[in-house]
């Protein structure tokens, strides 16, 4: 049974600078807090405990979503519910709108934020794989200013990220896929979190891959894995040899573990099946 939360002090800074000062002063005694969907759950289980929570929801400008210079900028504290319904995301990044629509359940989408999802580093999460396929970056701010990391730099391991102790995520920038290309995400899920999620960004012209698609396997390993898809560069979508080679590469790119959402062998099998489906989806197949 969950216990009452270990008492903590909630800080509500009004600026990113104040968040950074608090982070620097409190160090490991403090955690950043936004939707609380992951953090409060883990605290209730007694898995983690903090003396201080730093609520970032009052930092102005952190919740905006807008389209500028070929990218969609998603503010750190934008909730999944806001992202899935935002006209800019629906129009420019329909794959992300669809993915977000299927994150957890409606209550988690209403409370949970994109930055919280990334910062918690939960391996069985939906967004990282698609964000990696799309070439998204995580913009963070610390005492020395802002820097951005791609998803491979940010997602370091299970529950480990590239976020430093004095930093906060300010936004996630997602390049709008070029015209003609298709981004897609498919998952297999039996419990509350995906067993496997596969994302892909690529382009098919006249039945051929115009370049190696960006195929990413998520939710099954500690971090999302980019698959080498050079074997189908320029290949015909019907080219079974190339397609088979890439799907095998996808299955080998991950190191799954046996757990309630499936055995390691089963998850590897799912990776191959979903990889084939997302690649076929590039050709407009259902």
């Amino acid at each position, binding site marked *: 049974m969950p216990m009452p*939360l270990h008492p903590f002090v909630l800080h509500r800074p009004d600026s990113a600078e104040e968040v950074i000062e608090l982070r620097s002063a409190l160090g490991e005694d403090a955690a950043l807090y936004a939707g609380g969907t992951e953090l409060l759950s883990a605290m*209730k289980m007694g898995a983690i405990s903090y003396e201080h929570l730093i609520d970032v929801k009052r930092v102005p400008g952190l919740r905006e979503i807008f389209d500028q210079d070929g990218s969609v900028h998603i503010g750190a504290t934008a909730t999944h519910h806001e992202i899935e319904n935002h006209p800019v995301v629906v129009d420019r990044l329909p794959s992300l709108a669809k993915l977000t629509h299927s994150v957890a*359940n409606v*209550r988690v989408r209403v409370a949970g934020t994109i930055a919280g999802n990334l910062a918690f580093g939960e391996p069985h999460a939906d967004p990282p794989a698609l964000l990696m396929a799309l070439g998204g970056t995580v913009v963070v701010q610390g005492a020395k200013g802002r820097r951005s990391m791609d998803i491979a730099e940010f997602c370091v391991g299970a529950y480990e990220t590239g976020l430093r102790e004095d930093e906060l995520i300010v936004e996630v920038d997602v390049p709008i896929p070029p015209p003609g290309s298709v981004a897609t995400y498919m998952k297999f899920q039996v419990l509350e979190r995906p067993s496997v999620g596969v994302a892909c960004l690529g382009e098919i012209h006249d039945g051929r891959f115009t370049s190696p698609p960006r195929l990413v396997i998520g939710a099954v390993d500690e971090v999302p894995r980019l698959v080498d898809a050079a074997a189908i560069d320029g290949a015909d979508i019907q080219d079974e040899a190339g397609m088979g080679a890439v799907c095998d590469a996808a299955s080998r790119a991950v190191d799954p573990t046996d757990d309630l959402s499936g055995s390691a062998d089963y998850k590897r099998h799912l990776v191959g099946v979903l990889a084939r489906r997302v690649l076929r989806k590039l050709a407009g197949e259902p």
Partner: protein
Amino acid sequence: MSARKISFVLNRRPQETEIDDSVLLLDFLRDRGLTGAKPSCEMEVCGSCTILIDGLPFSACTTLAVEVEGRTVETIEGVARNGELHPIQEAFVERFAMQCGFCTPGMVLTAKALLESNPDPSRDDILHWMEGNICRCTGYESIVEAILSAAAKAGTGDG
């Protein structure tokens, strides 16, 4: 411990109270006798503790009570007005959309939030939106029928 004063609206009544930062909304509500929201899975999965904040569903089990500051909270106790059931509650009664009743407050509130944002949902819209509310008696079909019926009645003006 760290307490702060908050004001908010609970079931249409303005409230002012002092509350510790680390108190969960579910405990806060239940300690006030509002026991319609139930502790069950305690991890945002089952929906039995669903309450509405500014019209949207939240898991009260994993929401800090201080989050309601300046906002409007609705629990199942506030859904009926002047002794009259809400049309969604009536539809649940008409369609026998409850068995043991444990999940019903969460089901009704989640459905209310759906119909307020999407008054004419398809069956698929309902299935997707309600996916996070678990009925351990497995009485899902009549729940979906009740929500469709409430939406249809509201649409034709009989509701």
